[in-house]
């Protein structure tokens, strides 16, 4: 009985809110991730985990592909001086370098696009801005991967 009029020892004092006790409970604060009626049901996939894993696996492969590419293009055999149409024709005469470039194109574009998706999610705070920036990113990515693939497979050394 006497406990109801005096303050319990474990009561919490919040700034400007008076004293909370079993008779004067603090307002309930909803946990931020509570599932509500408007939460879509089937969103529980492991997409982000696979994205995380992909960044690491593709990164390891890209070390070889991209550093090898830079070595060939900028360091060996006269560096940038030698590059021209004839040089590309010589390289893409070999299926090995075609496949190298194709794999590098796909992995680097997907790795970079997924990385940029993270960056957009981090900095674009308005829902609309975020949505449209990502649409722009996905459009540019699909276009670039498609164009690059087409160029490798339709390359014609005797174009003129």
């Amino acid at each position, binding site marked *: 009985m006497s406990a109801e009029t005096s303050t319990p020892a474990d009561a919490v004092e919040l700034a400007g809110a008076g004293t909370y006790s079993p008779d004067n409970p603090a307002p309930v604060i909803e946990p931020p991730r509570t599932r509500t009626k408007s939460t879509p049901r089937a969103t529980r996939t492991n997409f982000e985990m696979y994205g995380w894993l992909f960044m*690491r696996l593709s990164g390891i492969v890209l*070390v070889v592909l991209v*550093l090898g590419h830079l070595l060939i293009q900028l360091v060996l055999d006269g560096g*940038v001086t030698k*590059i*021209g149409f004839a040089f590309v024709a010589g390289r893409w005469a070999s299926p090995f370098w075609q496949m190298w470039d194709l794999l590098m194109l796909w992995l680097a574009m997907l790795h970079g696009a997924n990385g940029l998706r993270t960056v957009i999610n981090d900095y674009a705070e308005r829902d609309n801005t975020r949505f449209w920036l990502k649409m722009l990113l996905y459009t540019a990515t699909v276009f670039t991967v498609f164009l*690059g693939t087409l*160029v490798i497979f339709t*390359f014609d050394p005797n174009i003129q």
Partner: protein
Amino acid sequence: MPAGTLYRGREGMWSWVAHRVTGVLIFFFLFVHVLDTSLVRVSPQAYDNVVATYKNPIVNLMEYGLVAAILFHALNGLRVIAVDFWSKGPKYQRQMLWSVVGIWIVLMAGAFYPVLDHTLRTLFGS
């Protein structure tokens, strides 16, 4: 720097910033690079014209910068992977960062002459 902060303002934060900036830079370069390479489907002249810009001294210097960005992103990316998958990774993350910086300096010194060879020869004669 706020007291008691393990991450903010430390090497870990700055290496993350550099990893992010270099990643975005490389992506934008790759977008332009696939466009310029696609000119091989237009004509040999169109392609050789665009490649001529790669041989301009200022652009050549930017290529050295691109090499710098990629080397850092690649080496630090391997460090991030080691931190995530190697059981002792988190313990040695600082030592690994300084190893990354050390290897990066050595490789950049080694790349200086080969990458800028074209500019050195055009500016200072052969």
